């Protein structure tokens, strides 16, 4: 045997024995856990420490203050948050499930267009959705003023404000969660079940009560939990409609007032509620699910035949289309309005193209766009690296702690953006190992890090969905042809999962572009992102520029949705 050969039996054996040892997999997954530890667990823990410490020693005083009846602001906020969330669940449930039945089960004039537009609220960045509602239906909104002028009233006949406004906005932006799950569930309902019931003598009403509703319950409970969680985390709507007594607003106010201990306490309590809901949701998803017992069945839509029914459904469709499109329309109109040209009139009086030109020519105005693009890109790159590795580990590797990995990745998604912001502030206001001995708060890196954390699950989920559909044997075939693990990952696994990765990455990117809730807590003058700029311009009464930013965000989202749809259409990935 030649001594110079690299592949002597002994080196080969040593190598194999190392990589095939049962502990090798932990070497592979430990970086993933390290990242989660550093940027999810540690910040969460730091916030808790801050809340449970006064002058360096352990104390529950902050919690006593929170729950004390003397200063009821906190308790009131908790209560308001909860009841806003409960009502949001109810209204979203009614609208979402109603829409799903209407669009899945009935054929009427206008159904096609309505079923496309029904998803519009998903395309609105959070801040934009709320602002457009304020423009449209707020105290000095277009619709109330138009009605006032039309009916010759002294005052506006109605306007959205306070908790009512928050609820309307929640309904508009969150019913889609109910709509999506309900329409999937309705499509998954095997029509032969209803026929079986009918053949046994049951009438429509009985079938609804005994078959359809019980079978939809799992989907509805799941969406109810989701909407509750999202409503609890809602920050923008209370901010714009001036409801200060909600948990998220209280956290924001404590932070801006410099009461960091209280902010940490409030954050911790909100975290507990959110994580609790996450756990309930995961537990519930593993509980029973009745869908897809038989595949490939299609329901015939009942045609609305009577003349009256036709007119009513047509009128309602038009109303639906108008309501769904108005937010976009108003945003576009206002983006062309001259600043200061809209005071007491119904619509702005002067229009200009200047805001769009300004966006790309004025360096001051361009800066937030550049910031957003740069920071979101950085975060997305991080998400891709982490998400692909984690998805591969979760789907393909066997190791203890898989469920933990899964849950840890979902935690940042369950945490309200406000809480993520507070956590990062708590963790990275001082230098530590995880920040490579830098103070991150106030630096450029804190916002990309926040985006990375908030959008952690997106690439992970889309990629693991593709991995799950991928046949393991393709990878094994590559290995059997002599490819190393890395080679087969590069040449086989990654290209095959590419579409899934891309869909998740695009989603993470646009979410970063639209992110507002965490950004508002941690931005600095140099790193102002687009959403914060919109907010600032709004309060400087520069509606035109604000809406031009918003239109740009919306355009980006639409492009991304379009590309994702194309990709998903081609390869049937579901996220």
């Amino acid at each position, binding site marked *: 045997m030649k001594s110079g050969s690299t592949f002597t039996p002994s080196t080969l054996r040593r190598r194999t024995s190392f990589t095939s040892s049962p502990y090798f997999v932990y070497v592979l997954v430990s970086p993933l856990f390290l990242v989660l530890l550093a940027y999810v667990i540690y910040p969460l823990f730091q916030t808790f420490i801050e809340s449970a410490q006064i002058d360096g020693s352990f104390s529950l005083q902050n919690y006593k203050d929170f729950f004390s009846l003397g200063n009821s602001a906190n308790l009131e906020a908790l209560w308001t948050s909860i009841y806003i969330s409960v009502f949001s669940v109810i209204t979203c449930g009614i609208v979402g499930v109603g829409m799903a039945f209407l669009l899945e089960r009935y054929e009427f004039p206008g159904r096609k267009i309505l079923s496309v537009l029904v998803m519009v609220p998903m395309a609105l960045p959070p801040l934009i959705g709320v602002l457009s509602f304020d423009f449209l239906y707020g105290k000095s909104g277009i619709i109330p003023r138009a009605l006032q002028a039309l009916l010759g009233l002294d005052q506006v006949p109605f306007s959205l404000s306070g908790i009512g406004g928050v609820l309307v906005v929640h309904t508009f932006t969150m019913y889609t969660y109910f709509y999506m799950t309900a329409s999937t569930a309705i499509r998954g309902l*095997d029509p*032969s*079940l209803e*026929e*079986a*019931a*009918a*053949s*046994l*003598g*049951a*009438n429509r009403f*009985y079938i609804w009560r*005994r*078959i359809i509703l*019980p*079978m939809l319950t799992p989907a509805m409970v799941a969406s109810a939990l989701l909407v509750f969680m999202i409503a609890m985390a809602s920050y923008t709507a209370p901010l714009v409609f001036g409801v200060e007594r909600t948990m998220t607003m209280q956290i924001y106010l404590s932070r801006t007032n410099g009461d960091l201990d209280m902010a940490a306490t409030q954050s911790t309590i909100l975290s507990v509620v959110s994580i609790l809901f996450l756990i309930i949701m995961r537990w519930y998803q593993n509980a*029973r699910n*009745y869908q897809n*017992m*038989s595949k490939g069945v299609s329901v015939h839509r009942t045609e609305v035949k009577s003349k009256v029914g036709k007119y009513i459904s047509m009128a309602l469709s038009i109303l639906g289309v108008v309501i769904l499109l108005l937010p976009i329309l108003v945003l576009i109109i206002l983006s062309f309005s001259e600043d200061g040209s809209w005071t007491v009139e119904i619509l702005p009086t002067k229009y200009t193209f200047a805001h769009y030109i300004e966006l790309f020519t004025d360096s001051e105005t361009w800066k937030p766009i550049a910031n957003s693009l740069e920071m979101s890109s950085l975060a997305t790159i991080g998400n891709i690296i982490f998400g692909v590795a984690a998805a591969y580990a979760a789907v393909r590797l066997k190791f203890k702690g898989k469920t933990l990995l899964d849950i840890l990745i979902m935690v940042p998604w369950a945490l309200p953006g406000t809480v993520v912001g507070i956590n990062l502030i708590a963790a990275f206001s001082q230098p530590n190992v995880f920040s490579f001995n830098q103070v991150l708060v106030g630096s450029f890196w804190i916002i990309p890090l926040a985006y990375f954390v908030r959008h952690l699950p997106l690439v992970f989920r889309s990629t693991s969905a593709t991995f799950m559909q991928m046949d393991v044997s393709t990878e094994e075939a590559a290995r059997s042809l002599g490819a190393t693990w890395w080679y087969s990952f590069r040449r086989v696994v990654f290209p095959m999962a590419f579409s899934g990765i891309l869909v998740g990455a695009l989603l993470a990117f646009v979410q970063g572009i639209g992110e507002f809730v965490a950004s508002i807590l941690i931005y600095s003058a140099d790193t102002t992102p687009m959403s914060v700029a919109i907010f600032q311009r709004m309060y400087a009464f520069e509606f035109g520029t604000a809406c031009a930013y918003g239109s740009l965000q919306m355009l980006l989202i639409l492009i991304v949705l379009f590309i994702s749809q194309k990709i998903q259409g081609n390869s049937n990935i579901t996220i």
Partner: protein
Amino acid sequence: MISVKLDHVSKMFGTVKGVEDIDIHIRSGEFFTFLGPSGCGKTTTLRMIAGFYYPTEGRIMFGEQDVTYLPPNKRNIGMVFQNYALFPHLTVFENVAFGLQVRKQSKQEIKEKVDRALKLVHLDGYGNRRIDQLSGGQQQRVALARALVIEPQILLLDEPLSNLDAKLREETRVEIKRLQLELGVTTIYVTHDQAEAMAMSDRIMVMKNGVIQQVGTPQEIYNRPNNEFVASFIGESNLLEGIVEEIHDQQIRVRFSSDWVLTGLQENVAPKTTLTKGEKVKISIRPESIREAKTEENGENIVRGKVALSEFTGVSVNYITQIGELQLKSMFINLGNRVYQRGEELALSIPKESVYFLG
């Protein structure tokens, strides 16, 4: 029990034809089967009887009652679906009880009837199971119990065995037939499996492209197929085309080639078909009706050829014999006779009464 009459029923789906001019009378207590390849309109016909579709033309009668446009929940039918359509959120007991609860029967009565029904399908003790805890065959029987417990006037089954494996299919087939005989319920059965249809039915309706091909008892359908489709769809058959050479004294002579002539009987001509001398005619000969002839035997229905394929299955010996341009399939019960090999000469005798003239 009740009879079912389809009076010139047609169904169009928009411009797509479902079925056309179905005109049958199913007798009270009969086991009647719709047989045909997939897409021929069996389900469509069944669903019109159930009330899930309304006919575009024609009427449907249950006994003396016109039910053409009666909604399904008012028809008192029991239906077993191809995928069983069991309610996944209800237990076995609740599934079977469903139809009785709809009929507002008392708890006591429901319990008794459900227990009896479960016993009937050998599922006593399974009442508290969830549906997904049952095997395919058990689910099948729950579906059957659910349909039968309401004491329907008519039992409708749409390919109820197609999701079971071969062995279970045979067992369940016997079971369904037993229940039907025991209860005497008028039964309409849909299948694309001709063996199943032959084994179970009192009468069979053979369909193709939405049109009836033949209605008759299994024997009639098998022995006296109306046309080429029926002959080839049910069992194996030699389908040959020849020229009518002579019609004389209730006998018909057909020529296939210069040295091959067969004689058949006038009574074996398909209904509504008249043969004329010099015209083409299609005939069908079942492989098992062909006999082996002695080498020295000679006669008008004896042909000789070379064995092109010889197949020993245990039960039988199957041959394909080359006769000039034509091939003839034959099947002999294995009685320990000599098995001819490929290339050997074989003499075959075709009984006159086994030659069928198709329409």
